[in-house]
């Protein structure tokens, strides 16, 4: 019994990380109907940026967030403004192709710069610290921290979207680009801000990934898959849905791993397929396609 509680708890905690992988993806699709195939690779890129920052300045990974987050946000703004804005239009295909190409470029660029060696960021004692929740149930401090941050990030995004002028601008531009322009909104700038926000979340996800597990240039696509699955399970257009999707995916994987370690990823995929078959629009959909 205790076993199962621990399993589900571990699943929930890693689910928070998956939700963070997915949040940036969900945001971009919601605002500009752009599917960013390079999303997972951008998470890995953020991890390598954190690696460089921590080694250059001798600071811890969590402290490096102060630099990595604004840096990735700026990269996101430039990327959208200079490259991806040109791909947006009636057709869904050009952004897919361009971001696919971007994915290849990022992976090979990182491979050339850093080699295929597996890396990991050291966060020190916090990595092995545990706290006791109640009798027989212990959680790692770092996973718990990551989960809390993931929930906080989703809540912050929700706040931005529904309670700020910027969020209004995002939603209005998603509804109608031409009428949004009539309000004085420059679509190119609004989209670039959305991508900057997405990559800021990617930066946090990347640093957490780097501390929690090994990473190398090829890890991107797997993160993208988990991100997609979390978004689809939760329902397009709903940020809390994305959190739910991440948690469900995490728990499914944890249950699968408990039965047989080789079944971890498979269990997640099976859960995703079942939900896609039974309720294709996801659990809490908001977006009309």
């Amino acid at each position: 019994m205790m076993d199962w509680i621990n399993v589900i708890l571990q699943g929930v905690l890693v689910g928070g990380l998956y939700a963070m992988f997915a949040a940036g993806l969900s945001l971009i699709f919601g605002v500009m109907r752009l599917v960013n195939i390079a999303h997972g690779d951008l998470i890995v890129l953020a991890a390598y940026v954190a690696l460089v920052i921590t080694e250059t300045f001798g600071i811890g990974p969590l402290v490096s967030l102060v630099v990595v987050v604004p840096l990735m946000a700026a990269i996101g703004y430039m990327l959208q403004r200079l490259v991806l804005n040109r791909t947006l239009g009636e057709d869904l295909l050009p952004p897919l192709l361009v971001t696919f190409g971007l994915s290849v470029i990022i992976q090979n660029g990182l491979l050339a710069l850093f080699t295929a060696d597996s890396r990991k960021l050291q966060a020190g004692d916090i990595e092995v610290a545990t706290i006791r929740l109640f009798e027989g149930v212990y959680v790692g401090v770092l996973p718990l921290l990551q989960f809390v941050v993931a929930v906080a990030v989703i809540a912050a995004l929700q706040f931005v979207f529904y309670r700020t002028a910027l969020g209004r601008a995002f939603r209005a531009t998603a509804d109608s680009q031409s009428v949004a322009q009539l309000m004085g909104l420059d679509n190119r700038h609004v989209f670039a801000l959305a991508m900057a926000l997405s990559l800021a979340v990617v930066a946090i996800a990347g640093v957490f990934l780097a501390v929690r597990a090994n990473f190398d240039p090829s890890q991107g696509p797997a993160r993208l898959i988990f991100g997609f699955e979390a978004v689809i399970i939760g329902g397009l257009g709903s940020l809390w849905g994305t959190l739910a999707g991440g948690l469900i995916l995490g728990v499914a994987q944890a249950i699968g791993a408990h039965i047989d370690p080789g079944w971890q990823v498979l269990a997640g995929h099976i859960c995703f397929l079942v939900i896609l078959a039974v309720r294709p629009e996801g659990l809490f959909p908001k977006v009309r396609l």
Partner: protein
Amino acid sequence: MSEPPLLAVRDLDAFYGDFQALFGLSMEVAAGEAVAVIGANGAGKSTLLKSIAGLLRARPDAITFNGARIGGMPAHAVAAQGIALVPEGRGLFASLSVEENLLIGGQLKRPGPWNLQRVYELFPVLGERRHLASTALSGGQQQMVAISRGLMSNPKLLLCDEISLGLAPIVVRDIYARLPAILGQGISLLLVEQDVVQALKTTQRVYCLQEGRVALAGAAKDLTREAIAAAYFGV
């Protein structure tokens, strides 16, 4: 001695791809004036408004506003100049509530008399429904939201594209009854309308378009029904 007009359109051509919708069209609106543009479907009325608002490409010197050449400027820049378009079919943001639609209208924060409180005084029913989704309102109420959203940017010139479209006559009369309150604040109005009677009652001057050209222009009170019918239908 005449002041230059607030809006001057000179020799405007407009294209949808290869299809030409406007042919060397010229017209103007003076400061504080209310001008109507009437014409049959396809005459080019909406095209004219979209060109002024920046949604359609135009030559830089084809459109002058407040002394500045705005032809070809992107729509968000034209809005910043002080022109607000109430689009055909309302164009409300479906994901936003009534109040959010109004707030985003005021995005530019231009100085002026119009704000949320003034809007709710003009259209009290909107205040009652401020947190509803904009699409949950009746057609007439949605039109009030669309007009108010335009007013929230405190424009110098308000462009209205067929605000009577799809509305019951009594609702149309109700909305037009509020226009004097809007005009009294010094806003200039360029009104595209299918409802010729309302257009003539509300405005000082009228242009009648036919197949992308001005077929008739004059003071609203001077034009006879026969002249208008002839220009409207091109007989």
